[in-house]
């Protein structure tokens, strides 16, 4: 039977407290275990279990450490959402350009889009460039924020502003994707179904999936912000 280890139990508790970020939990488990074993080796007075207990006591409460890491993890996620927003906008742009290039190459009959088409094209352009501008503003804003040591009301307000920028960029992007969908339907409404329509449909699918991915990403960050705020409130009250 394996000997009980205070250190192993401690790193297990710490990893459980960090369950909001599995990759961080894995990395920290290894890092903290090395720290504690080093502390035991440097101060081996008494028996092994006693030395391990001293090392663990000096390290501190795992929940307090996890509460501080929750802020670090949230900041990392927010930065990723900022980058994701820019990437998604770029993917939508490329899909749109690929579809237009395909129409040219295949000399597709464009169908009669008429006045409705003109209006939708205007909406599409405005919504897309709005998404680009607001997305870049959000990315620059989140990148400029300094991560605080603890979750403060001020940091929560800053994240709230970032979420608003993300929602505005996502909303504009969705409007652009919907406009693209309408334009694609108008273009393809005339000709018969053939392989010519495969690329437009695939490019539209890429746009829709990218926009949905961005919505999921922003929603995940909003949820993590709320749970970090709750944990910080529980820990500090």
């Amino acid at each position, binding site marked *: 039977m394996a000997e009980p280890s205070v250190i192993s139990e401690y790193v297990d508790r710490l990893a459980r407290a960090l369950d909001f970020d599995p990759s961080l939990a894995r990395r920290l488990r290894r890092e903290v275990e090395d720290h504690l074993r080093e502390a035991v080796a440097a101060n081996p007075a008494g028996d092994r279990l006693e030395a391990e207990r001293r090392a663990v006591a000096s390290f501190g409460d795992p929940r307090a*450490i996890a509460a501080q890491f929750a802020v670090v993890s949230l900041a990392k996620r927010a930065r990723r959402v900022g980058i994701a927003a820019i990437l998604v906008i770029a993917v939508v742009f490329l899909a749109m350009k690929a579809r237009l290039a395909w129409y040219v190459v295949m000399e597709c009959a464009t169908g009669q889009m008429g006045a409705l088409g003109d209006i939708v094209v205007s909406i599409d352009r405005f919504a897309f460039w709005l998404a680009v501008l607001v997305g870049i503003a959000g990315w620059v804003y989140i990148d400029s924020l300094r991560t605080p040591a603890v979750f403060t009301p001020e940091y929560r307000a800053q994240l709230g502003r970032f979420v608003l920028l993300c929602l505005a960029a996502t909303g504009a992007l969705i409007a652009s994707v919907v406009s693209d969908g309408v334009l694609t339907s108008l273009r393809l409404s005339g000709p018969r179904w053939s392989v010519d329509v495969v690329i437009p449909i695939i490019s539209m699918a890429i746009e829709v999936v990218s926009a949905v991915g961005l919505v999921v990403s922003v929603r995940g960050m909003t949820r993590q912000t709320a749970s970090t705020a709750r944990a910080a409130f529980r820990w500090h009250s």
Partner: protein
Amino acid sequence: MLKGHLDMIVLAALSAGPAHGYAVIEEIKRRSGGAFDLPEGTVYPVLHRLEQAGLLAGRWVTAASGRRRRVYAITRRGRRELGERRAVWEQFSEAIGSLFKGSRPWQNPA
């Protein structure tokens, strides 16, 4: 008060050269003459936060014991940040010192 300056303390401890978390804490204790005996776990969120901000760079190495450990080194940006914080701190410390030196009773309390 110490919590507000942890970033500067950790950057200062790593300015001497790369080290793993345990060595950073020992260096802080040693350089402060034991005055900064922090709960050791509080230093790790700081190390991770500074790494995320690009002020530290971390890498995994294999220690003599065979265990994998993460070693942190201060980056050029980290040194610049430390220099700026140090200048602010020295200015603040000098101002407080001047205030204490100038303590004397009011000539005319009314």
